[in-house]
């Protein structure tokens, strides 16, 4: 801790601060990666494996043998030979302490052995049905569709409306512009949790309760977006606009043809944030949406995990599905996101 601020270091020598730095980095990486990695690994384990303790590290399932003359594959066991060694057999049936097994090398003959000589065989196995089942049998496809719809529509509307407001607030001098800007900024300080009851009443009054549009409309106007875009647009020279006006371009054309293309970097940052906000949003959709066919993925996941019998193999698979889009966005746009956060102080 004391020496973290060394700027100059002897080349090729590790001193104590270097060691502490790397200990912190590696430990931190492990602390972050292990729970996520564990959830991802577990998401492809079969149900029996999920419920067993102590857990196995890699996803495994009971090995099965396809043996001639048997309709179904037989569970594989390793049989301890009396003279030492072991061989692989398929279990036909088991009654008490006696098991009937068959050797895959000689499918014709069954023989009886003591059950205690058998050990169950497992093999590496990824249970992809954990992913496909919830999408088919439960309503997860609906949740997924709702989430994509809300995220896409709200992001497009946010980009359009916020950039229009930012354009007006950065490129015009008009009465009340400062008041409007301060009003918008003041809502930055105002958390949803303070106004959720009356905000819900407004939703009911507009007949948008239990409606995806209720979630969309109420989150489109963001103070963060207006602020971020306005600051960026202030750097665009006014001469461009004057020149366009001389050419008799309408104000909307100026906004659309000059300001928007030039604001692309700021728009991109806002688009990334907007997608992440909407995809991850929880409390407000929880209040607005009440029937399961309108749930977003987050609400569906929460409802599913709250059920009496917790089906972890499905929950974990759907958790991974919920985490995937954000992860992909981050992998590709990591630089823009971290720089956007550092420069604006929002997330």
């Amino acid at each position, binding site marked *: 801790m004391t*020496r*973290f*601020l060394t*700027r100059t270091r002897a080349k090729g020598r590790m001193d104590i601060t270097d060691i502490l*730095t790397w200990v*912190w980095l590696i430990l*931190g990486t492990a602390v*972050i990666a292990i*729970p*996520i990695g*564990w959830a991802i690994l577990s998401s492809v384990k079969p149900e029996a494996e999920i*419920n067993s*303790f102590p*857990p196995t590290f890699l996803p495994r399932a009971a090995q099965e043998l396809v043996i001639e003359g048997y309709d179904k594959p037989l569970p594989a066991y390793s049989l301890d030979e009396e003279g030492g060694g072991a061989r692989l057999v398929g279990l036909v049936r088991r009654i008490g302490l006696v098991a009937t097994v068959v050797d895959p090398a000689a499918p014709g003959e069954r023989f009886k052995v003591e059950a205690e000589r058998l050990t169950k065989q497992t093999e590496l196995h990824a249970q992809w049905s954990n992913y496909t089942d919830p999408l088919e049998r439960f309503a997860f496809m609906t949740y997924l569709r709702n989430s994509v719809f809300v995220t896409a529509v709200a992001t497009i509307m946010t980009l359009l409306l916020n950039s*229009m*407001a930012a354009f*007006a*607030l950065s490129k015009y001098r008009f009465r009340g*512009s400062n008041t409007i800007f301060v*009003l918008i900024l003041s*809502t930055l*300080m*105002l*958390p949803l*949790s*303070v*106004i*959720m*009851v*009356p905000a*819900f*009443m*407004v939703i*009911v009054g*507009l007949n948008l309760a239990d409606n995806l549009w209720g979630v969309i409309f*109420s989150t489109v106007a963001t103070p963060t977006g207006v602020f971020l875009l306005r600051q960026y647009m202030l750097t665009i020279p006014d001469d461009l606009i004057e020149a366009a006006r001389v050419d008799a371009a*309408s*104000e*909307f054309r100026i906004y659309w043809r000059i300001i928007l293309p030039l604001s692309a970097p700021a728009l991109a940052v806002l688009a990334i944030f907007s997608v992440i906000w909407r*995809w991850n949003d*929880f*409390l407000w959709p929880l*209040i607005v949406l009440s029937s399961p066919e309108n749930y977003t993925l*987050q609400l569906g*996941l*929460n409802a599913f*995990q*709250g059920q009496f019998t917790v089906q*972890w193999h499905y*929950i*974990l698979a759907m*958790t991974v599905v*919920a*985490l995937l889009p*954000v992860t992909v966005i*981050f992998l590709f746009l990591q630089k823009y*996101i*971290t720089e956007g956060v*550092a420069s604006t*102080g929002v997330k």
Partner: protein
Amino acid sequence: MSDLSNDQPPHGHTPKGRKLSAMLDRALEHVMAVIEWPFSLLQRVIGLRRMPYVFVLPNMILFGVFVFVPVLLAIAYAFTGGTNLLIWERPFVGFDNFARLLNCGSFLDPASCELDLFWTAVFNTGWYTVFNSAGTLVVALITALVLQRLTRGKTFFRAVFFYPVLLSPVVVALIWKWFLARNGLLNAVFADLMGERVIFMLEVLWSRFWVVYVSIWFHMGFYTLIILAGLQAIPRDIYEAALIDGTSRWRQFWRLTLPLLMPNLLVVLVLLLIRSVQAFDEVWVLSDGGGPGTANTFIVQFIYETAFATDVRLYGLASAASVLMGLGLLLLTLFQLWLAKKVET
């Protein structure tokens, strides 16, 4: 939009991709032409000088309907009773809701209050706020200092530490719920070392510990980035001067880095306090609705459940609790402004 057929094809772009993007361009062109028409018409009618109002209007309508009106309503609701959602059908009850919330034998003992759940939530939130803010600040500061030191791999580790911030609260809660479950990985280690399993989220102290731990794990990367930005803004020649003077690194940290970083750290601390007071999502899912018992029931959960998750929906009481919390947050914000001014001078 530029005429794409005349451009040099960008590296790696297939002709098919170019055709597609040209098609999208044209489609967008048509859409915008349709939107442009009413705007130009409007401009001809009202004149150029009033156009900025047209541009801010859609945003301001949405702000008004979904933010400004609710703020006023929140205060109005707090003074009404009954279970009807429609404000004009609710009886005015004066300060009754506030009186009920504040009706306590002793403010230090939630059990002596009429609404003991509210006060339990206040105390839980208070302790959580203290531990979460302090913990996150320390971890984020150390991480930022470590990252600042790196010459190689900085971008990579910054990304690693930031990644959890982008996950959804439900996803984070479920990942940890599974990790801490009876059959979870942590219990495998625990059973190995201690001989028995612990059901972490069913024990008061353990569950509180993990709630704070998961919160730090979740949000730490965000604050690390802000502190890192502050560190990068400190001019390097100050350190060079200190080096020439032979200042020890320990002294450097306490005498140079920390004071120069102070304004930044204060912003982080107040942000942390404000966000901790409003904690809900991941805590609620992780602790199965504030459990065990009410050990992790926070204020926002009280408001949410009073208003939306019971048969008798007490909107007035919930609003009164919201207003109290809003006042607390306002005080924190004013405190920040005051501090910021003080640090500056």
